[in-house]
């Protein structure tokens, strides 16, 4: 590539009149679908940023133990409802690296509350790669090294501490593990059910179609939340937190599939008349094979986009259930469980930081919405 004096770029390679001009264009047309989708998706900046952000969040999930300074249920009985502490770099105009001012607590005998005041005289430097509460890296490798932790003799509550003196920041990180995966499990359940019922309804038609269609209509016409509530109230209280988590995600998915099944069915109804389907059938392909190999790949990407758009509903659903006390239960940490503390106004007014978990919820839900919009717009690469 050479740049001419007038600013144009010219290819150095000698001009080859034999080369087919069409070849370049062909390359574009023959490119695999995902390349084209990716090319178009890249132009959707908001979707791209949201996607990257979500990917980053999910990658962090297995190592939250390393990032969080405290364990999820580690209590500090001396620091109940301690306000957020900030990390500072300069003390009295001098740079001394990241440090915090330790909090001193004092009982206010008029309001019967603890009053916390930072002690501005003694800056205490943060420790890095230090030992703390043990946790399991990737859920397997036991470790007790933390990215950063509180200096000796001080606490480190970036976003304050809650009713039992647990660090809100660490709990939000641990809560992400459940709150973010609940949507994924729920959507997988709904995906499997939706594709299964949608495809048999659309492919076979007739009576099966009628029955499935009625079921879809009925489920879609019912308010979800009361049913979610009723189903989760049926979960026995002696189940382990893990079992409860799984069953709640399944419950979230069970009521979500009708929407997906409906769009699958509509697609199938139109696609099953295509010639290539007839051809496959003539050659003796079983219905299962026709559905899986010939029909589903046609709009898999479309389904993924709509699944992305329904994950937020599940995250919000889990939050609502846990918030009302019928979802995940106490030793488990999720954003909804944390917000349970922020249930009454008096609490929020006195301890506003207990409502912080709503920020990650809003951000994650927005990100999923933007990502889904971006995906949906870029799925049809041949359409301008």
């Amino acid at each position, binding site marked *: 590539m050479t740049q001419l004096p007038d600013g144009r770029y010219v290819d150095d390679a000698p001009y080859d009149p034999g080369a087919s001009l069409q070849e370049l264009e062909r390359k574009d047309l023959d490119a695999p679908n995902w390349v084209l989708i990716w090319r178009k998706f890249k132009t959707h900046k908001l979707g791209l940023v949201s996607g990257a952000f979500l990917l980053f969040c999910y990658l962090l999930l297995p190592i939250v133990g390393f990032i969080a300074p405290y364990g999820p249920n580690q209590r500090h009985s001396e620091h109940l409802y301690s306000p957020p502490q900030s990390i500072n770099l300069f003390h009295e105009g001098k740079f001394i690296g990241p440090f915090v001012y330790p909090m001193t607590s004092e009982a206010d005998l008029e309001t019967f509350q603890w009053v916390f005041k930072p002690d501005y005289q003694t800056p205490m430097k943060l420790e890095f790669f230090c030992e703390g509460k043990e946790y399991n890296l990737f859920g397997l490798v036991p470790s007790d090294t933390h990215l950063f932790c509180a200096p000796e003799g001080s606490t480190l509550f970036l976003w304050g501490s809650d009713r039992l003196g647990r660090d809100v920041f660490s709990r939000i990180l641990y809560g992400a593990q459940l709150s973010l995966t609940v949507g994924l499990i729920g959507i997988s359940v709904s995906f499997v059910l939706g594709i299964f019922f949608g495809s048999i309804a659309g492919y076979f038609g007739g009576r099966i179609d009628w029955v499935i269609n009625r079921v879809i209509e009925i489920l879609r016409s019912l308010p979800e939340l009361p049913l979610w509530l009723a189903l989760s109230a049926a979960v026995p209280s002696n189940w382990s937190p893990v079992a409860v988590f799984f069953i709640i995600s399944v419950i979230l998915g069970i009521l979500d599939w009708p929407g997906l099944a409906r769009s699958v069915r509509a697609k199938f109804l139109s696609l099953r008349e295509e010639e290539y389907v007839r051809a496959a059938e003539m050659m003796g392909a079983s219905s299962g094979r026709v559905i899986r190999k010939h029909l589903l790949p046609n709009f898999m990407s479309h389904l993924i986009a709509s699944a992305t758009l329904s994950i937020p509903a599940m995250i919000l659903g889990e939050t609502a259930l846990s918030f009302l006390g019928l979802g995940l239960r106490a030793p488990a940490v999720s954003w909804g469980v944390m*917000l349970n503390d922020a249930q009454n106004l008096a609490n929020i007014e006195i301890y506003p930081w207990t409502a912080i978990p709503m920020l990650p919820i809003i951000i994650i839900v927005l990100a999923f919405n933007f990502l889904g919009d971006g995906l949906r717009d870029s799925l049809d690469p041949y359409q301008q």
Partner: protein
Amino acid sequence: MEILRYAIYRFGTMLLTLWVVSILVFVIINLPPGDYLSNQIAELRASGQSAGVAKAEFLRSEYALDKPLWQQYLIWVGFLPGPHGFSGLIQGNFGWSFEFDLPVAEIVGDTLWLTVLVNLAAVLFVYMVALPLGVLAAARARSWVDYTSAFVGYLGLATPNFLLALILFYYGHRWFDLPIGGLMDPAFEGEPMSWDKVKSILIHLIVPTFVIGTSGASAMMQRLRANMLDELGKPYVETAVAKGMSPSRMLAKYPLRVAFNPFVADIGNLLPSMISGSVLVSVVLGLQTIGPTLLTALKTQDLFLSGFVLMFVALLTLIGTMISDVLLVLLDPRIRYEGRDA
């Protein structure tokens, strides 16, 4: 007359749906192992109170809980005679709440029409907000009006209802001196209707309406905007503009009318989620609607109470959807009458 036939047909399908829903609800409320009474009997036995056991046993046979499940269902709905002849939901007997030791009808009482009121207010709110904003966003597409409304809409979709409730409640009280909690001044509770009571209810309705309606309004607004944009690109709009019609008149006369149909029909899709939202918001804000009742009933396994509340919520949704379907047919003569997607 066609429309009447369609309305009757639609009513018939609603009844059928309701019947299926009743089975679903009955199964769900019977899912938890054990029921309220057998738990209570076990508890009483353990503490050696035989008088209580006798009463619980009596209630058990009184409400046919000792019969097989399918018979219990039929008795509950009122298809089969129970111990006292036919007295189920269709006969107007909603059952007995074991937790409160009162008939279900007495517990829910006032909350029923308050639930309807809250949801009606929310639906009105959705229309009143979404219509002007959606049209404005489409007419001034890609301007600050459009972007601001899109941003607010996205936030409305992403903020969980109950959080919005808490936040608005807090600031509503602080800045506008709106009352906190409940649907009316405690002084008016159980009082007969009076002008003051109506005023009190209206003031208390402001925050809940806003909270329940916001996500619906933003969804509706975005859809109306998309529909309007589709219409605005069509040649007839260009013609109207070229002939010198004023923009506002042109908007109201042509594209809006076309974009209006889906707008009406959509309320049917939105209702389920709005009623869900109202249940949740009622719990958070302590409204005297059916939401908090449902929560306590579910937590204490009070099966007739929770069954009735679930049925009521479903009925409310179904009726709303039916009305919106019939309205749509009234508005748009192009829609075929029998079974729209058959």
